[in-house]
Protein backbone atom coordinates (compact mmCIF):
# COMPACT_ATOMS: atom_id res chain seq x y z
CA UNK A 1 0.00 0.00 0.00
CA UNK A 2 1.53 3.31 -1.03
CA UNK A 3 0.99 6.67 0.63
CA UNK A 4 -1.55 7.34 -2.09
CA UNK A 5 -3.80 4.56 -0.96
CA UNK A 6 -3.46 2.37 -4.04
CA UNK A 7 -1.21 -0.63 -3.70
CA UNK A 8 1.08 -1.06 -6.68
CA UNK A 9 1.40 -4.78 -6.15
CA UNK A 10 -0.68 -7.29 -8.02
CA UNK A 11 1.72 -8.33 -10.76
CA UNK A 12 1.34 -8.22 -14.48
CA UNK A 13 1.45 -11.88 -15.47
CA UNK A 14 -1.24 -14.50 -15.84
CA UNK A 15 -1.20 -17.37 -13.37
CA UNK A 16 -1.16 -20.56 -15.53
CA UNK A 17 -2.68 -22.85 -12.88
CA UNK A 18 -5.44 -20.38 -12.08
CA UNK A 19 -6.13 -19.89 -15.77
CA UNK A 20 -6.41 -23.63 -16.44
CA UNK A 21 -8.75 -24.08 -13.45
CA UNK A 22 -10.81 -21.13 -14.68
CA UNK A 23 -11.07 -22.47 -18.23
CA UNK A 24 -12.12 -25.88 -16.89
CA UNK A 25 -14.86 -24.20 -14.84
CA UNK A 26 -15.97 -22.23 -17.88
CA UNK A 27 -16.13 -25.33 -20.08
CA UNK A 28 -17.91 -27.21 -17.30
CA UNK A 29 -20.57 -24.49 -17.12
CA UNK A 30 -21.05 -24.56 -20.88
CA UNK A 31 -21.18 -28.39 -20.78
CA UNK A 32 -23.87 -28.45 -18.08
CA UNK A 33 -26.07 -26.06 -20.05
CA UNK A 34 -25.42 -28.03 -23.25
CA UNK A 35 -26.63 -31.22 -21.55
CA UNK A 36 -29.61 -29.62 -19.76
CA UNK A 37 -30.86 -27.38 -22.52
CA UNK A 38 -28.86 -27.05 -25.75
CA UNK A 39 -29.84 -24.36 -28.21
CA UNK A 40 -31.26 -21.13 -26.88
CA UNK A 41 -30.04 -21.48 -23.27
CA UNK A 42 -26.51 -22.31 -24.47
CA UNK A 43 -26.46 -19.28 -26.75
CA UNK A 44 -27.74 -17.14 -23.85
CA UNK A 45 -24.89 -18.34 -21.62
CA UNK A 46 -22.38 -17.47 -24.33
CA UNK A 47 -24.00 -14.02 -24.54
CA UNK A 48 -23.75 -13.62 -20.76
CA UNK A 49 -20.04 -14.53 -20.89
CA UNK A 50 -19.42 -11.98 -23.67
CA UNK A 51 -21.32 -9.37 -21.62
CA UNK A 52 -19.11 -10.13 -18.61
CA UNK A 53 -15.98 -9.78 -20.75
CA UNK A 54 -17.14 -6.39 -22.01
CA UNK A 55 -17.79 -5.16 -18.45
CA UNK A 56 -14.40 -6.40 -17.19
CA UNK A 57 -12.60 -4.84 -20.14
CA UNK A 58 -14.60 -1.60 -19.92
CA UNK A 59 -13.81 -1.04 -16.23
CA UNK A 60 -10.10 -0.72 -17.16
CA UNK A 61 -10.90 2.38 -19.25
CA UNK A 62 -12.58 4.28 -16.41
CA UNK A 63 -10.22 6.85 -14.84
CA UNK A 64 -10.49 6.36 -11.09
CA UNK A 65 -8.27 8.20 -8.63
CA UNK A 66 -9.88 7.03 -5.39
CA UNK A 67 -9.18 8.91 -2.15
CA UNK A 68 -5.98 10.71 -3.35
CA UNK A 69 -7.91 12.28 -6.25
CA UNK A 70 -10.23 13.93 -3.71
CA UNK A 71 -7.24 15.90 -2.41
CA UNK A 72 -5.87 16.65 -5.87
CA UNK A 73 -2.99 14.25 -5.18
CA UNK A 74 -3.55 11.94 -8.14
CA UNK A 75 -5.45 12.18 -11.44
CA UNK A 76 -8.82 10.55 -12.02
CA UNK A 77 -12.29 10.65 -10.54
CA UNK A 78 -12.40 10.71 -6.76
CA UNK A 79 -14.35 7.54 -6.14
CA UNK A 80 -13.94 3.76 -6.26
CA UNK A 81 -13.49 1.76 -9.46
CA UNK A 82 -16.45 -0.54 -8.87
CA UNK A 83 -18.65 2.34 -7.73
CA UNK A 84 -18.19 4.47 -10.79
CA UNK A 85 -18.26 1.62 -13.29
CA UNK A 86 -21.46 0.32 -11.69
CA UNK A 87 -23.05 3.76 -11.75
CA UNK A 88 -22.34 4.18 -15.46
CA UNK A 89 -23.12 0.61 -16.45
CA UNK A 90 -26.43 0.55 -14.61
CA UNK A 91 -27.46 3.88 -16.11
CA UNK A 92 -26.76 2.18 -19.45
CA UNK A 93 -28.77 -0.88 -18.41
CA UNK A 94 -31.70 1.45 -17.66
CA UNK A 95 -31.62 2.75 -21.23
CA UNK A 96 -31.03 -0.65 -22.77
CA UNK A 97 -33.90 -2.28 -20.87
CA UNK A 98 -36.21 0.54 -21.95
CA UNK A 99 -35.31 0.01 -25.60
CA UNK A 100 -35.58 -3.81 -25.41
CA UNK A 101 -38.86 -3.91 -27.33
CA UNK A 102 -37.31 -2.00 -30.24
CA UNK A 103 -34.97 -4.84 -31.10
CA UNK A 104 -31.68 -6.39 -30.04
CA UNK A 105 -29.39 -3.94 -31.85
CA UNK A 106 -31.18 -0.77 -30.71
CA UNK A 107 -31.29 -2.00 -27.11
CA UNK A 108 -27.57 -2.82 -27.06
CA UNK A 109 -26.68 0.53 -28.63
CA UNK A 110 -29.06 2.31 -26.23
CA UNK A 111 -27.36 0.64 -23.26
CA UNK A 112 -23.91 1.56 -24.52
CA UNK A 113 -24.85 5.18 -25.19
CA UNK A 114 -26.61 5.47 -21.81
CA UNK A 115 -23.44 4.39 -20.00
CA UNK A 116 -21.26 6.61 -22.19
CA UNK A 117 -23.50 9.63 -21.66
CA UNK A 118 -23.47 9.17 -17.88
CA UNK A 119 -19.68 9.14 -17.90
CA UNK A 120 -19.45 12.07 -20.35
CA UNK A 121 -21.51 14.25 -18.00
CA UNK A 122 -19.79 13.03 -14.82
CA UNK A 123 -16.27 13.50 -16.22
CA UNK A 124 -17.18 17.01 -17.43
CA UNK A 125 -18.51 17.98 -14.00
CA UNK A 126 -15.35 16.59 -12.36
CA UNK A 127 -13.23 18.86 -14.56
CA UNK A 128 -15.56 21.79 -13.95
CA UNK A 129 -15.07 21.37 -10.18
CA UNK A 130 -11.29 21.01 -10.51
CA UNK A 131 -10.94 24.02 -12.81
CA UNK A 132 -13.57 26.50 -11.65
CA UNK A 133 -13.89 25.62 -7.95
CA UNK A 134 -10.35 24.52 -7.14
CA UNK A 135 -8.30 26.36 -9.77
CA UNK A 136 -6.37 23.22 -10.71
CA UNK A 137 -5.59 22.32 -14.36
CA UNK A 138 -5.48 18.65 -15.39
CA UNK A 139 -2.15 16.84 -15.31
CA UNK A 140 -1.47 13.14 -15.80
CA UNK A 141 0.98 11.42 -13.51
CA UNK A 142 1.58 8.42 -15.75
CA UNK A 143 2.46 9.93 -19.14
CA UNK A 144 4.36 13.09 -20.07
CA UNK A 145 2.11 13.87 -23.03
CA UNK A 146 -1.59 13.35 -23.73
CA UNK A 147 -1.73 10.72 -26.52
CA UNK A 148 -4.75 12.45 -28.13
CA UNK A 149 -4.16 16.19 -27.74
CA UNK A 150 -0.37 16.22 -27.33
CA UNK A 151 -0.61 18.44 -24.20
CA UNK A 152 2.39 18.12 -21.90
CA UNK A 153 1.76 17.71 -18.16
CA UNK A 154 5.00 17.97 -16.24
CA UNK A 155 4.89 21.77 -15.84
CA UNK A 156 1.28 21.75 -14.65
CA UNK A 157 1.71 19.13 -11.95
CA UNK A 158 1.62 20.51 -8.37
CA UNK A 159 4.67 19.79 -6.26
CA UNK A 160 4.35 16.73 -4.06
CA UNK A 161 1.50 15.18 -6.06
CA UNK A 162 1.20 12.56 -8.77
CA UNK A 163 -0.94 14.84 -10.94
CA UNK A 164 -4.60 15.84 -10.73
CA UNK A 165 -7.81 16.36 -12.66
CA UNK A 166 -8.93 14.56 -15.80
CA UNK A 167 -6.74 14.95 -18.89
CA UNK A 168 -8.57 14.51 -22.20
CA UNK A 169 -7.32 10.93 -22.70
CA UNK A 170 -8.85 10.03 -19.31
CA UNK A 171 -12.12 11.71 -20.34
CA UNK A 172 -12.26 9.66 -23.54
CA UNK A 173 -11.35 6.54 -21.57
CA UNK A 174 -14.20 7.22 -19.15
CA UNK A 175 -16.73 7.51 -21.97
CA UNK A 176 -15.46 4.30 -23.62
CA UNK A 177 -15.52 2.49 -20.26
CA UNK A 178 -19.07 3.63 -19.53
CA UNK A 179 -20.20 2.59 -23.01
CA UNK A 180 -18.62 -0.87 -22.73
CA UNK A 181 -20.14 -1.33 -19.27
CA UNK A 182 -23.59 -0.31 -20.50
CA UNK A 183 -23.23 -2.59 -23.52
CA UNK A 184 -22.14 -5.58 -21.42
CA UNK A 185 -24.82 -5.07 -18.77
CA UNK A 186 -27.55 -4.73 -21.39
CA UNK A 187 -26.34 -7.83 -23.25
CA UNK A 188 -26.55 -9.90 -20.05
CA UNK A 189 -30.03 -8.51 -19.36
CA UNK A 190 -31.36 -9.23 -22.85
CA UNK A 191 -29.97 -12.78 -22.92
CA UNK A 192 -31.44 -13.64 -19.52
CA UNK A 193 -34.76 -11.97 -20.37
CA UNK A 194 -35.06 -14.12 -23.51
CA UNK A 195 -34.39 -17.29 -21.49
CA UNK A 196 -36.89 -16.36 -18.78
CA UNK A 197 -39.59 -15.39 -21.28
CA UNK A 198 -39.10 -18.75 -23.00
CA UNK A 199 -38.82 -21.13 -20.06
CA UNK A 200 -40.58 -19.54 -17.07
CA UNK A 201 -44.18 -19.91 -18.39
CA UNK A 202 -43.65 -23.69 -18.65
CA UNK A 203 -41.74 -23.97 -15.37
CA UNK A 204 -44.37 -22.01 -13.41
CA UNK A 205 -47.33 -23.17 -15.48
CA UNK A 206 -48.62 -19.65 -16.08
CA UNK A 207 -49.43 -17.54 -19.16
CA UNK A 208 -46.59 -15.54 -20.69
CA UNK A 209 -48.28 -12.16 -19.97
CA UNK A 210 -48.33 -12.90 -16.24
CA UNK A 211 -44.73 -14.08 -16.29
CA UNK A 212 -43.37 -11.00 -18.08
CA UNK A 213 -43.02 -8.73 -14.98
CA UNK A 214 -41.28 -11.55 -13.12
CA UNK A 215 -38.99 -12.24 -16.08
CA UNK A 216 -38.04 -8.55 -16.37
CA UNK A 217 -37.37 -8.30 -12.61
CA UNK A 218 -35.29 -11.48 -12.47
CA UNK A 219 -33.26 -10.56 -15.55
CA UNK A 220 -32.69 -7.06 -14.13
CA UNK A 221 -31.58 -8.32 -10.71
CA UNK A 222 -29.25 -10.93 -12.19
CA UNK A 223 -27.82 -8.39 -14.68
CA UNK A 224 -27.07 -5.94 -11.83
CA UNK A 225 -25.55 -8.74 -9.73
CA UNK A 226 -23.35 -9.97 -12.56
CA UNK A 227 -22.35 -6.41 -13.37
CA UNK A 228 -21.07 -5.95 -9.82
CA UNK A 229 -19.27 -9.32 -9.86
CA UNK A 230 -17.39 -8.42 -13.04
CA UNK A 231 -16.67 -4.84 -11.94
CA UNK A 232 -15.23 -6.06 -8.62
CA UNK A 233 -13.01 -8.62 -10.37
CA UNK A 234 -11.70 -5.89 -12.68
CA UNK A 235 -11.19 -3.57 -9.70
CA UNK A 236 -9.09 -6.21 -7.93
CA UNK A 237 -7.03 -6.58 -11.10
CA UNK A 238 -6.45 -2.81 -11.20
CA UNK A 239 -5.50 -2.65 -7.48
CA UNK A 240 -6.44 0.86 -6.42
CA UNK A 241 -6.34 3.58 -9.02
CA UNK A 242 -6.04 3.82 -12.81
CA UNK A 243 -5.87 6.83 -15.12
CA UNK A 244 -7.39 5.22 -18.19
CA UNK A 245 -6.17 3.48 -21.36
CA UNK A 246 -2.75 5.21 -21.20
CA UNK A 247 -2.02 3.90 -17.71
CA UNK A 248 0.51 1.02 -17.58
CA UNK A 249 -2.00 -0.88 -15.41
CA UNK A 250 -4.33 -1.02 -18.42
CA UNK A 251 -2.11 -3.75 -19.87
CA UNK A 252 -3.32 -6.06 -17.10
CA UNK A 253 -6.75 -6.38 -18.71
CA UNK A 254 -6.26 -9.88 -20.25
CA UNK A 255 -6.11 -11.34 -16.74
CA UNK A 256 -9.37 -9.63 -15.78
CA UNK A 257 -10.99 -10.74 -19.03
CA UNK A 258 -10.21 -14.38 -18.19
CA UNK A 259 -11.47 -13.93 -14.62
CA UNK A 260 -14.65 -12.21 -15.77
CA UNK A 261 -15.34 -14.91 -18.37
CA UNK A 262 -15.13 -17.63 -15.72
CA UNK A 263 -17.18 -15.71 -13.15
CA UNK A 264 -19.82 -14.83 -15.75
CA UNK A 265 -20.02 -18.45 -16.89
CA UNK A 266 -20.63 -19.74 -13.36
CA UNK A 267 -23.07 -16.94 -12.43
CA UNK A 268 -24.79 -17.23 -15.81
CA UNK A 269 -25.14 -21.01 -15.35
CA UNK A 270 -26.96 -20.52 -12.05
CA UNK A 271 -29.12 -17.70 -13.45
CA UNK A 272 -30.19 -19.84 -16.41
CA UNK A 273 -30.68 -23.03 -14.41
CA UNK A 274 -33.22 -21.19 -12.24
CA UNK A 275 -35.57 -21.15 -15.23
CA UNK A 276 -34.46 -24.14 -17.25
CA UNK A 277 -34.42 -26.86 -14.57
Amino acid sequence: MSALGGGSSGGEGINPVGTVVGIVLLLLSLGVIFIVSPGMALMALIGVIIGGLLIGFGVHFVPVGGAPAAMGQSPGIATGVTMLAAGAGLAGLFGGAWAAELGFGVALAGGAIGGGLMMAITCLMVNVIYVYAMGIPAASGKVAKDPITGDTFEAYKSQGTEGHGLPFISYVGGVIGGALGGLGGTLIYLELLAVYEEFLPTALNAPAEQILPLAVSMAGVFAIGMFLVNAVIAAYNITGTIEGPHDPKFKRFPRAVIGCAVASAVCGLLAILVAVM
Partner: protein
Amino acid sequence: MEELLFGIGISAVAGALATVSGAAEDTESDIGSQGDPNSQVQLAPQMGYIHRIYSKAISGEPPAYGLWCALGAGLAWALMAINYNPVLAIVLGSAIAVFVQGVYATTAYLGRTASLAKFEQPVYIDLIKSVTTVTMAHAFVAIFTCVSMCFLMVNALGHPFPLPLLGLVWGIALGAAGSATGNPFYGKERQYQTQAFGAGVPISASGNIVRYAEAGQRSSLDNGWFTSKMGGPASGVCFGLIVFLELWRTIFFEEFAAGWGAVIAGIVLILIFMIIDRFVETWARKTYGPYTEETAEEASS
Protein backbone atom coordinates in the same frame (compact mmCIF):
# COMPACT_ATOMS: atom_id res chain seq x y z
CA MET B 1 -48.01 15.18 -29.96
CA GLU B 2 -49.79 15.42 -26.61
CA GLU B 3 -48.07 12.25 -25.48
CA LEU B 4 -44.69 13.61 -26.54
CA LEU B 5 -45.23 16.85 -24.60
CA PHE B 6 -46.35 14.84 -21.58
CA GLY B 7 -43.19 12.72 -21.82
CA ILE B 8 -40.92 15.75 -22.05
CA GLY B 9 -42.73 17.37 -19.12
CA ILE B 10 -42.22 14.27 -17.01
CA SER B 11 -38.55 14.20 -18.07
CA ALA B 12 -38.17 17.78 -16.88
CA VAL B 13 -39.81 17.00 -13.53
CA ALA B 14 -37.64 13.88 -13.13
CA GLY B 15 -34.56 15.93 -14.00
CA ALA B 16 -35.51 18.56 -11.40
CA LEU B 17 -36.05 15.86 -8.76
CA ALA B 18 -32.69 14.33 -9.69
CA THR B 19 -31.00 17.72 -9.30
CA VAL B 20 -32.36 18.13 -5.77
CA SER B 21 -31.47 14.52 -5.03
CA GLY B 22 -27.86 14.94 -6.20
CA ALA B 23 -27.38 18.14 -4.20
CA ALA B 24 -28.85 16.60 -1.02
CA GLU B 25 -26.83 13.40 -1.49
CA ASP B 26 -23.52 15.21 -1.73
CA THR B 27 -24.26 17.51 1.20
CA GLU B 28 -25.35 14.53 3.29
CA SER B 29 -22.18 12.61 2.48
CA ASP B 30 -20.01 15.64 3.25
CA ILE B 31 -21.68 16.26 6.62
CA GLY B 32 -21.37 12.59 7.47
CA SER B 33 -17.94 12.43 5.78
CA GLN B 34 -18.77 9.34 3.78
CA GLY B 35 -16.83 9.98 0.58
CA ASP B 36 -13.21 9.27 -0.27
CA PRO B 37 -11.90 12.35 1.64
CA ASN B 38 -12.88 10.49 4.80
CA SER B 39 -9.56 8.68 4.47
CA GLN B 40 -8.04 11.91 5.83
CA VAL B 41 -10.55 12.10 8.70
CA GLN B 42 -9.53 8.58 9.63
CA LEU B 43 -5.82 9.31 9.11
CA ALA B 44 -5.69 12.60 11.08
CA PRO B 45 -5.71 11.11 14.64
CA GLN B 46 -3.01 8.65 13.57
CA MET B 47 -0.84 11.67 12.71
CA GLY B 48 -1.63 13.34 16.05
CA TYR B 49 -4.46 15.60 14.90
CA ILE B 50 -7.49 14.97 17.13
CA HIS B 51 -10.71 16.33 15.60
CA ARG B 52 -14.50 16.53 15.91
CA ILE B 53 -15.38 15.48 12.35
CA TYR B 54 -18.08 12.84 11.87
CA SER B 55 -17.03 9.60 10.15
CA LYS B 56 -19.47 7.10 8.65
CA ALA B 57 -17.63 5.78 5.61
CA ILE B 58 -17.98 2.05 6.05
CA SER B 59 -19.09 1.76 2.44
CA GLY B 60 -18.91 3.93 -0.64
CA GLU B 61 -21.75 6.30 -1.46
CA PRO B 62 -23.05 4.30 -4.46
CA PRO B 63 -23.78 1.01 -2.62
CA ALA B 64 -25.08 2.94 0.40
CA TYR B 65 -27.50 4.96 -1.70
CA GLY B 66 -28.32 1.86 -3.76
CA LEU B 67 -29.45 0.24 -0.51
CA TRP B 68 -31.38 3.22 0.85
CA CYS B 69 -33.13 4.08 -2.41
CA ALA B 70 -33.97 0.42 -3.11
CA LEU B 71 -35.30 0.15 0.45
CA GLY B 72 -37.37 3.34 0.11
CA ALA B 73 -38.65 2.29 -3.32
CA GLY B 74 -39.37 -1.27 -2.16
CA LEU B 75 -41.36 -0.15 0.86
CA ALA B 76 -43.25 2.42 -1.21
CA TRP B 77 -44.01 -0.27 -3.81
CA ALA B 78 -45.26 -2.64 -1.09
CA LEU B 79 -47.48 0.07 0.42
CA MET B 80 -48.87 0.96 -3.00
CA ALA B 81 -49.67 -2.72 -3.52
CA ILE B 82 -52.04 -2.50 -0.55
CA ASN B 83 -53.64 0.62 -2.03
CA TYR B 84 -51.81 3.38 -0.19
CA ASN B 85 -51.77 6.74 -1.89
CA PRO B 86 -48.49 6.91 -3.92
CA VAL B 87 -47.33 10.17 -2.32
CA LEU B 88 -47.94 8.84 1.19
CA ALA B 89 -46.33 5.51 0.24
CA ILE B 90 -43.18 7.22 -1.04
CA VAL B 91 -42.97 9.46 2.04
CA LEU B 92 -43.37 6.49 4.40
CA GLY B 93 -40.95 4.31 2.39
CA SER B 94 -38.31 7.05 2.37
CA ALA B 95 -38.83 7.76 6.09
CA ILE B 96 -38.28 4.11 7.03
CA ALA B 97 -35.21 3.95 4.74
CA VAL B 98 -33.87 7.02 6.53
CA PHE B 99 -34.10 5.25 9.89
CA VAL B 100 -31.91 2.50 8.43
CA GLN B 101 -29.52 5.23 7.29
CA GLY B 102 -29.52 6.66 10.82
CA VAL B 103 -28.65 3.28 12.35
CA TYR B 104 -25.94 2.86 9.74
CA ALA B 105 -24.51 6.32 10.44
CA THR B 106 -24.50 5.86 14.22
CA THR B 107 -22.89 2.44 14.21
CA ALA B 108 -20.40 3.55 11.55
CA TYR B 109 -19.34 6.60 13.58
CA LEU B 110 -19.03 4.61 16.79
CA GLY B 111 -17.15 1.76 15.12
CA ARG B 112 -14.78 3.86 13.05
CA THR B 113 -13.99 6.32 15.82
CA ALA B 114 -13.62 3.68 18.53
CA SER B 115 -11.03 1.96 16.34
CA LEU B 116 -8.88 5.10 16.76
CA ALA B 117 -8.88 4.84 20.58
CA LYS B 118 -5.19 3.95 20.70
CA PHE B 119 -4.45 7.28 19.00
CA GLU B 120 -6.47 9.04 21.76
CA GLN B 121 -9.32 10.09 19.45
CA PRO B 122 -12.44 10.39 21.67
CA VAL B 123 -15.95 9.33 20.67
CA TYR B 124 -18.08 12.47 21.08
CA ILE B 125 -21.62 11.61 22.14
CA ASP B 126 -22.85 15.16 21.43
CA LEU B 127 -21.68 14.69 17.83
CA ILE B 128 -23.92 11.67 17.43
CA LYS B 129 -26.85 13.69 18.72
CA SER B 130 -26.25 16.79 16.61
CA VAL B 131 -24.84 15.46 13.33
CA THR B 132 -26.68 12.17 12.84
CA THR B 133 -30.07 13.82 12.65
CA VAL B 134 -28.80 16.37 10.14
CA THR B 135 -27.43 13.65 7.85
CA MET B 136 -30.76 11.83 8.21
CA ALA B 137 -32.67 14.95 7.16
CA HIS B 138 -30.49 15.39 4.07
CA ALA B 139 -30.72 11.67 3.30
CA PHE B 140 -34.51 11.91 3.43
CA VAL B 141 -34.50 14.64 0.81
CA ALA B 142 -32.12 12.62 -1.40
CA ILE B 143 -34.05 9.35 -1.05
CA PHE B 144 -37.52 10.88 -1.38
CA THR B 145 -36.64 12.78 -4.55
CA CYS B 146 -34.84 9.78 -6.06
CA VAL B 147 -37.73 7.40 -5.33
CA SER B 148 -40.25 9.97 -6.63
CA MET B 149 -38.22 10.21 -9.83
CA CYS B 150 -38.21 6.42 -10.18
CA PHE B 151 -41.98 6.38 -9.59
CA LEU B 152 -42.46 8.80 -12.49
CA MET B 153 -40.24 6.65 -14.71
CA VAL B 154 -42.36 3.55 -14.01
CA ASN B 155 -45.87 4.99 -13.86
CA ALA B 156 -45.71 7.93 -16.25
CA LEU B 157 -43.04 6.85 -18.73
CA GLY B 158 -43.64 3.10 -18.65
CA HIS B 159 -40.14 1.79 -17.90
CA PRO B 160 -40.33 -2.02 -17.62
CA PHE B 161 -38.28 -2.31 -14.38
CA PRO B 162 -40.26 -2.54 -11.13
CA LEU B 163 -39.90 0.36 -8.68
CA PRO B 164 -37.48 -1.32 -6.20
CA LEU B 165 -35.13 -2.33 -9.03
CA LEU B 166 -35.14 1.21 -10.43
CA GLY B 167 -34.44 2.46 -6.90
CA LEU B 168 -31.34 0.27 -6.80
CA VAL B 169 -30.16 1.29 -10.29
CA TRP B 170 -30.63 5.03 -9.80
CA GLY B 171 -29.47 4.93 -6.16
CA ILE B 172 -26.13 3.51 -7.28
CA ALA B 173 -25.91 6.04 -10.14
CA LEU B 174 -26.83 8.86 -7.71
CA GLY B 175 -24.04 7.86 -5.33
CA ALA B 176 -21.56 7.53 -8.22
CA ALA B 177 -22.38 10.97 -9.66
CA GLY B 178 -22.44 12.65 -6.23
CA SER B 179 -19.19 11.16 -5.00
CA ALA B 180 -17.35 11.78 -8.30
CA THR B 181 -18.35 15.43 -8.48
CA GLY B 182 -18.54 16.44 -4.84
CA ASN B 183 -15.58 14.61 -3.28
CA PRO B 184 -12.73 16.82 -4.59
CA PHE B 185 -14.47 19.96 -3.34
CA TYR B 186 -14.97 18.53 0.15
CA GLY B 187 -11.53 16.92 0.23
CA LYS B 188 -9.24 19.56 -1.19
CA GLU B 189 -11.17 22.78 -0.67
CA ARG B 190 -12.66 22.14 2.76
CA GLN B 191 -10.54 19.65 4.65
CA TYR B 192 -7.34 21.26 3.37
CA GLN B 193 -8.53 24.85 3.35
CA THR B 194 -5.18 26.06 4.67
CA GLN B 195 -3.28 24.63 1.68
CA ALA B 196 -2.50 26.77 -1.36
CA PHE B 197 -5.44 27.41 -3.71
CA GLY B 198 -4.94 26.19 -7.27
CA ALA B 199 -2.70 23.24 -6.42
CA GLY B 200 -3.15 19.69 -5.22
CA VAL B 201 -2.44 18.85 -1.57
CA PRO B 202 1.17 17.64 -1.20
CA ILE B 203 1.26 14.03 -0.04
CA SER B 204 3.45 15.12 2.91
CA ALA B 205 0.49 17.16 4.28
CA SER B 206 -1.79 14.11 4.46
CA GLY B 207 -3.73 13.91 7.70
CA ASN B 208 -3.24 17.58 8.61
CA ILE B 209 -6.88 18.52 8.06
CA VAL B 210 -8.36 21.82 9.25
CA ARG B 211 -9.75 21.19 12.73
CA TYR B 212 -10.63 24.66 14.01
CA ALA B 213 -13.36 27.08 13.00
CA GLU B 214 -13.87 30.82 13.62
CA ALA B 215 -14.82 29.93 17.19
CA GLY B 216 -13.88 26.62 18.72
CA GLN B 217 -13.43 23.35 16.90
CA ARG B 218 -14.78 22.75 13.42
CA SER B 219 -17.96 20.71 13.25
CA SER B 220 -19.10 18.49 10.38
CA LEU B 221 -22.13 20.76 10.10
CA ASP B 222 -19.74 23.54 9.01
CA ASN B 223 -18.56 21.25 6.22
CA GLY B 224 -22.12 20.85 4.97
CA TRP B 225 -22.55 24.63 5.03
CA PHE B 226 -19.41 25.05 2.93
CA THR B 227 -19.92 22.29 0.37
CA SER B 228 -23.57 23.19 -0.17
CA LYS B 229 -22.26 26.30 -1.93
CA MET B 230 -20.51 24.41 -4.74
CA GLY B 231 -19.96 20.65 -4.37
CA GLY B 232 -23.63 19.97 -3.60
CA PRO B 233 -25.17 22.01 -6.42
CA ALA B 234 -22.57 20.73 -8.90
CA SER B 235 -23.43 17.14 -7.95
CA GLY B 236 -27.09 18.04 -8.38
CA VAL B 237 -26.47 19.47 -11.84
CA CYS B 238 -24.46 16.37 -12.74
CA PHE B 239 -27.16 13.88 -11.68
CA GLY B 240 -29.95 16.09 -13.00
CA LEU B 241 -28.32 16.27 -16.43
CA ILE B 242 -27.75 12.51 -16.50
CA VAL B 243 -31.40 11.75 -15.71
CA PHE B 244 -32.95 14.48 -17.84
CA LEU B 245 -30.84 13.88 -20.95
CA GLU B 246 -31.22 10.09 -20.71
CA LEU B 247 -35.02 10.46 -20.60
CA TRP B 248 -35.23 13.35 -23.06
CA ARG B 249 -33.16 11.70 -25.78
CA THR B 250 -35.20 8.50 -25.47
CA ILE B 251 -38.64 10.14 -25.45
CA PHE B 252 -37.94 12.76 -28.08
CA PHE B 253 -35.86 10.79 -30.58
CA GLU B 254 -37.01 7.18 -30.17
CA GLU B 255 -39.59 7.59 -32.93
CA PHE B 256 -36.93 8.39 -35.50
CA ALA B 257 -35.24 5.64 -37.53
CA ALA B 258 -36.88 2.78 -35.60
CA GLY B 259 -35.25 3.68 -32.31
CA TRP B 260 -31.81 4.56 -33.69
CA GLY B 261 -32.69 8.26 -33.41
CA ALA B 262 -32.21 8.11 -29.61
CA VAL B 263 -28.83 6.42 -30.10
CA ILE B 264 -27.67 9.08 -32.58
CA ALA B 265 -28.91 11.84 -30.25
CA GLY B 266 -26.90 10.24 -27.43
CA ILE B 267 -23.75 10.18 -29.57
CA VAL B 268 -24.24 13.86 -30.48
CA LEU B 269 -24.71 14.75 -26.79
CA ILE B 270 -21.54 12.86 -25.84
CA LEU B 271 -19.58 14.72 -28.54
CA ILE B 272 -20.96 18.08 -27.32
CA PHE B 273 -19.93 17.31 -23.73
CA MET B 274 -16.51 16.19 -24.99
CA ILE B 275 -16.00 19.53 -26.78
CA ILE B 276 -17.07 21.47 -23.66
CA ASP B 277 -14.65 19.40 -21.57
CA ARG B 278 -11.78 20.14 -23.94
CA PHE B 279 -12.63 23.83 -23.77
CA VAL B 280 -12.59 23.75 -19.96
CA GLU B 281 -9.25 21.91 -19.98
CA THR B 282 -7.52 24.31 -22.39
CA TRP B 283 -9.07 27.34 -20.63
CA ALA B 284 -7.52 26.18 -17.35
CA ARG B 285 -4.10 25.65 -18.94
CA LYS B 286 -4.14 29.10 -20.57
CA THR B 287 -5.63 31.01 -17.64
CA TYR B 288 -3.77 29.43 -14.73
CA GLY B 289 -0.55 28.54 -16.54
CA PRO B 290 2.07 26.07 -15.33
CA TYR B 291 2.61 25.35 -11.63
CA THR B 292 5.23 27.56 -9.99
CA GLU B 293 6.75 27.60 -6.52
CA GLU B 294 6.14 31.37 -6.26
CA THR B 295 2.41 30.90 -6.70
CA ALA B 296 2.34 28.48 -3.79
CA GLU B 297 4.38 30.81 -1.57
CA GLU B 298 2.23 33.83 -2.39
CA ALA B 299 -0.93 31.94 -1.60
CA SER B 300 0.38 30.70 1.72
CA SER B 301 1.82 34.05 2.84
